[in-house]
């Protein structure tokens, strides 16, 4: 009964979405005030309906209603309660419902927090979001209905994919989707501005906080996914250039370019066409990511059940959304003024260079991700592009980005002279080169480490110095001032983490029996015993490893090899001891003989690995700090051009 109500609510939501997508848009172009004012209530009603549907599915999971096919396939009675909430998005159908729900959350937020904007703009933005929602609701209802019943009703469900039974992964999809879907708001703003023919400063100012929040969520989501892969997959790696990881990285790179480009458009009135293109691209790449994951055209650890009709549906949707918006862009952007002439030595030129570099990096990732597909489509064979390609292409592109980051912070808007720009940077440059060299010499020389460290120190010093300078000056400093500094420092911290952990990680893959000891660096790992343990829905072999350093006990680690009862799927639970300076990582492999006296085990010593996650958190925090800026909440007249530049 409740399940049917959920289904009906979803169908009603589709109808409301159609109204929301069409009427306010027509109202905005015909200046019909009544139709325009339908936008906000429609957004709220749609949010209520989608939430009802979402709640109904959650209820079905909590009640173990295995007459619902989706519940039977993704849950069972032994599944812990927390994972029964998470199981709602554990499969294809539910994760799409989550997507629609999050879109509704974003839309209703726009409806509520848009008091300072003219009604026509709000109507257009909410309409565009309504059209996107229409597409996704149609997709859910036509091809992936989570409320489908199952007869005969099974007594017991299967189980949530054991890979997903991890606290980190419980919140990874919602965070990632908050980011992905959040870019739909930036997209809707861009389309609304193109439709209105008003690509002005106000447009950039309105869309920037939304984009920042979406970016912060996406950053957090990607970070969580990466952390999960590190702790759960047992391979000791944290980024695998898997197609689905790439699908989340591409919108992030473009989104990063977008938040900077929006700032230039807001402050200087330039780069308008470029900013709009970035906004369209960021959301298009999110959609492309959905297509890649949901259609199964690429083989990936994330690929859910594949179904060609779903693929065709998303492809058509992708073609419509991106095709229409790029056509609109080609039609309207040509008449947008290029704004003021750009001077080579200025903050905007540096920001433009960096956003171009980020877009090139995105293109490189896109190429590597789709290359197997293209080669297959041309009948030239099957292949896969591995990490070597991505590392060789991606890393060199990030070097100038990091270098320019500091120059961008230092340069003034409009025009700087070479003298005042570069003079104070000489000391920082020398200090970072020296610092990089010293660190690399101290830990064991390598050019890669020296370069990575020099860049990290360069960004840290180059970011801190202007912040300290500002702190010395009198006057109250708004918190948002530190947003950029915090995020930039986060990048530097992450670069240092990546450099040192990659440069000095030690790894041993051994055959080991109880009582044996393995030595990595200063640490000795002793396998004490392997025992059998039983969890709520799994049985596991658990190894007890005693870690000592110079004779003192450092940690007791308990890596497990789990076997989930209902799916018989083996899972590795790595054991990690973390501190600021190093991670000790142990994962238990297979028994090597019978009776099991020897085991294959992997031991890693990864210096500074925590810094990667710290960096991610700092970026997220920085992004959120920047949103607190008061100017985003002030009512803005759309003609009030902040920099005095005619639109």
């Amino acid at each position, binding site marked *: 009964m409740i399940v049917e109500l959920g289904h009906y609510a979803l169908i009603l939501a589709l109808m409301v979405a159609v109204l929301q997508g069409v009427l306010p848009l027509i109202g905005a172009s015909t200046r019909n005030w009544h139709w325009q004012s339908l936008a906000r209530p429609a957004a709220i009603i749609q949010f209520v309906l989608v939430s009802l549907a979402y709640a109904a599915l959650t209820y079905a999971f909590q009640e173990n209603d295995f007459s619902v096919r989706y519940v039977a396939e993704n849950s069972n009675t032994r599944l812990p309660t927390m994972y029964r909430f998470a199981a709602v998005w554990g499969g294809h159908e539910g994760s799409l419902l989550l997507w629609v729900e999050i879109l509704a959350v974003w839309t209703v937020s726009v409806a509520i927090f848009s008091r300072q904007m003219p009604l026509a703009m709000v109507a257009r933005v909410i309409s565009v979001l309504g059209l996107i929602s229409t597409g996704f609701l149609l997709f859910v209802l036509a091809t992936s209905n989570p409320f489908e019943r199952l007869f005969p009703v099974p007594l017991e469900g299967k189980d949530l994919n054991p890979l997903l039974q991890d606290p980190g992964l419980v919140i990874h999809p919602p965070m990632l989707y908050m980011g992905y879907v959040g870019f739909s708001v930036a997209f809707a703003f861009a389309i609304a501005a193109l439709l209105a023919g008003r690509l002005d400063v106000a447009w950039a100012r309105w869309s920037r906080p939304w984009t920042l929040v979406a970016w912060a969520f996406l950053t957090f989501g990607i970070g969580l996914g990466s952390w999960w892969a590190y702790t759960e997959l047992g391979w000791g790696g944290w980024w695998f250039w898997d197609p689905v990881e790439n699908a989340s990285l591409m919108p992030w790179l473009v989104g990063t370019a977008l938040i900077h480009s929006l700032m230039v458009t807001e402050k200087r009135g330039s780069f308008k066409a470029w900013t709009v293109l970035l906004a369209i691209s960021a959301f298009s790449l999110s959609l492309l990511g959905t*297509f890649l994951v949901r259609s199964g055209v690429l083989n990936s650890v994330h690929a859910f059940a594949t179904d*060609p009709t779903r693929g065709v549906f998303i492809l058509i949707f992708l073609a419509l959304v991106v095709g229409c918006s790029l056509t609109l862009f*080609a039609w309207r952007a040509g008449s947008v003024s290029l704004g003021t002439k750009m001077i080579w030595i200025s903050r905007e030129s540096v920001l433009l260079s960096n956003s171009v570099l980020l877009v090139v990096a995105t293109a490189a990732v896109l190429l590597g991700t789709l290359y197997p597909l293209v080669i297959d489509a041309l009948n030239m064979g099957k292949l896969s592009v591995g990490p070597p390609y991505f590392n060789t292409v991606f890393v060199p592109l990030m070097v100038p980005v990091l270098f320019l980051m500091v120059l961008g912070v230092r340069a003034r808007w409009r025009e700087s002279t070479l003298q005042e720009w570069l003079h104070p940077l000489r000391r920082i440059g020398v200090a970072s080169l020296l610092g990089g060299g010293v660190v690399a010499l101290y830990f064991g020389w390598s050019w890669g480490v020296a370069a990575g460290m020099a860049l990290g120190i360069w960004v840290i010093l180059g970011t801190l110095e202007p912040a300290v300078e500002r702190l010395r000056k009198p006057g109250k400093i708004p918190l948002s001032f530190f947003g950029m500094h915090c995020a930039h420092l986060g990048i530097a911290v992450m670069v240092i983490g990546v450099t040192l952990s990659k440069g000095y990680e030690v790894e041993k893959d051994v055959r080991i029996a109880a009582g044996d000891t393995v030595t990595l660096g200063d640490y000795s790992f002793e396998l004490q015993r392997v025992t059998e343990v039983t969890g709520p829905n799994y049985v596991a072999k658990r190894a007890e490893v005693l870690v000592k350093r110079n004779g003192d006990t450092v940690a007791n680690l308990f890596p497990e090899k789990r076997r989930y009862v209902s799916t018989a799927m083996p899972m590795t639970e790595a054991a990690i001891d973390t501190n600021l300076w190093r991670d000790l990582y142990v994962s238990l492999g297979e028994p090597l003989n*019978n*009776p099991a006296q020897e085991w294959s085990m992997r031991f890693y010593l990864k210096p500074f690995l925590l810094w990667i996650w710290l960096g991610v958190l700092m970026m997220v925090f920085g992004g959120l700090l920047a949103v607190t800026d008061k100017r985003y909440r002030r009512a803005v007249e759309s003609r009030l051009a902040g920099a005095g530049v005619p639109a």
Partner: protein
Amino acid sequence: MRVRVCRHSATMRKIILIPLGLFVVLLVFLAIGLKRDPREIPSPLVNRPAPAFSLQTLQSGQGLFSPDSMRGKVWMLNVWATWCAACQQEHPVLVAFAREGLVPLVGLSYKEVQASDEPAGKPMNPEDKLAMARQRSLTWLRVKGDPYSLVAMDLDGRVGIDYGVYGVPETYVIDKNGVIRYKQIGAVTPALLEEKIRPLIQELNRS
């Protein structure tokens, strides 16, 4: 020093069409890609002689089975196990196909007894393992129907390694000269049987 640039030139118009053009190209590739299956992996074993082995069979007292004994016949080898979910799905298809008696279908029972089946800390000796595997497989086949002319027991999975088994189930078509002519990773579906396997077998039988 502010110079306003307002060039609505033809070049600008062309430049802004580039994203649309690129997207159309991308779309074409995605559409073609949809029709392909990334899991269809060409096996290096196709058109190579089937690796030799000699294994105990499911029925005790039948002696050992080795692929050599199938020389002169077109036959199929199906890798399966009772613990494999996809095998259950595939099974009725195989039963119906075997009823036609077109070619002999040999089963390869792959790692039937898993480490987790063994009582904790007490590994089983190979004889017990074989007995357990036989008993489980026989019950399974009695309930679901038996499509196999015989089943070879690959308890430790060594033969599976020789055949490059990715996962269970897998199916091979082997010709009269003992050469692998086709390899299917994953469950055999009725469509696959009609479109690929049956025509291939008919062709091989004629030659």
